[in-house]
């Protein structure tokens, strides 16, 4: 009898834990922008996956590199084949925490997200400023930050060095919805 109680308790607890609130989007947008006098390069990926655990404020992002669309097909080919080597490293990821997640509400609030960003098999710790709003059925996060290509071992040949900036501006917009398994 006692064991049955414990079993019930176990099931109850599991439900509680797995029923914790999570927000997910599969259509997040990340775009990057390389701005130089000679050439501007930009690309957009609107199939980015992002998930936020509302109990812990943990956040994870997965970016398929081949889903970045460029203005010129040749740029896209070079990006995948020569710079980020998408066949070897198909995904970029971010894993971190939203600081003071509980303070996010219906009024837009500036928060910091701290975590590890991995691109091209190289990880660095990064702090990103984001604007966040949260209602019962949405969690919107948007912002922009800069990365250094040299941090991610992306080799830029001298012949295009004046066309590709070292500092790349990354913008993001995630419109999360409640995630049900």
């Amino acid at each position, binding site marked *: 009898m006692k064991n049955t109680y414990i079993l019930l308790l*176990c099931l109850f607890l599991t439900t509680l834990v797995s029923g914790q609130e999570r927000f997910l989007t599969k259509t997040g947008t990340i775009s990057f922008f390389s701005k130089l006098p000679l050439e501007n390069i930009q690309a957009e990926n609107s199939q980015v996956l992002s998930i936020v655990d509302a109990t812990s404020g943990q956040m994870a992002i997965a970016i398929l590199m081949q889903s970045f669309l460029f203005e010129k097909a040749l740029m896209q080919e070079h990006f995948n084949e020569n710079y980020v080597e998408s066949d070897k490293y198909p995904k970029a990821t971010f894993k971190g925490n939203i600081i003071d997640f509980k303070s996010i509400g219906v009024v837009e609030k500036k928060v910091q997200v701290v975590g590890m960003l991995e691109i091209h098999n190289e990880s660095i710790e990064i702090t990103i400023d984001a604007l966040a709003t949260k209602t019962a059925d949405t969690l919107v996060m948007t912002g922009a930050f800069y990365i250094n290509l040299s941090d991610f071992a992306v*080799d830029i040949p001298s012949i295009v060095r004046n066309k590709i900036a070292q500092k790349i501006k990354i913008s993001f917009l995630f419109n999360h919805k409640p995630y049900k398994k």
Partner: protein
Amino acid sequence: MKNYFMIFAVLLCSFQLSAQDLLDILDKETPKVDNVVTATFKGTRIVNGHSIKNRKSKELEFIIAHRFGRVNTGFGELFGLDQANIRFAFEYGLTDDLTAGLGRSSYEKTYDGYLKYALIKQKEGVHHFPFAVSLFGSIAAKSQKAIVGSERTFAESLYYVGQILIAKKINASFSFQLTPTYVHRNLTTIDADPHDIFALGFGTRLKLNKRVSLNAEYYWQFDKLVSIAARNSLAFGIDIETGGHVFQIILSNSITMIEKSFITETTGNFFAGDIHLGFNLSRTF
């Protein structure tokens, strides 16, 4: 004691769940997509002949290709650099899968037009497909004035080529293409020359580093023009990628750059030094 053990199991169970990696969930939620294999070849030509590479929609490419004279003509001819056969062409992506080209070669003052269509693409993922197939068709018209006594009509100046390009990217640094080819000429020089010639092309790309690859190409003819003692075309090329275009440096026993011509009208013996240095320069707008 048993109860404590159970409670411990419960706690462990819940702990594991809460610490479950969010990235794993994203992995599960990632939609399964097909990845079209790209960069099988970097240029629209492997060396002389077409590769499965198409221009993207609305992309206009201007190509200037040169083949110099034979290197074994010696110092007097500056190893062939004194003569040059040139072809310039505009090639345009009507769609991502259909490219049209218009060109003119100085050799026999020939105009050529072609269409190339990507029929099947090599894919990885859900709808996996192991190789790519493209179709190629061209018409060439010789406009050089005929010598007195052997005048020809416009129809007699025409040549037709049909090709099936079958290519496979084996891995990031090695690609291969088979090219069954049919060439038809309306007029032959002598009766013993065939009007129809079938050939099989072999082409390959070996990537040496991120920006340089070594290409080779050979067209084996099942039937040959006897009037000119035609040989099979052999060519080696180096692709150098710069930001906006691919630069190809070429060594070949063929001096011409269009299919009807280099496949069936090559007369040089590569291994006797009848080698033409050449380059393909392209600029994409």
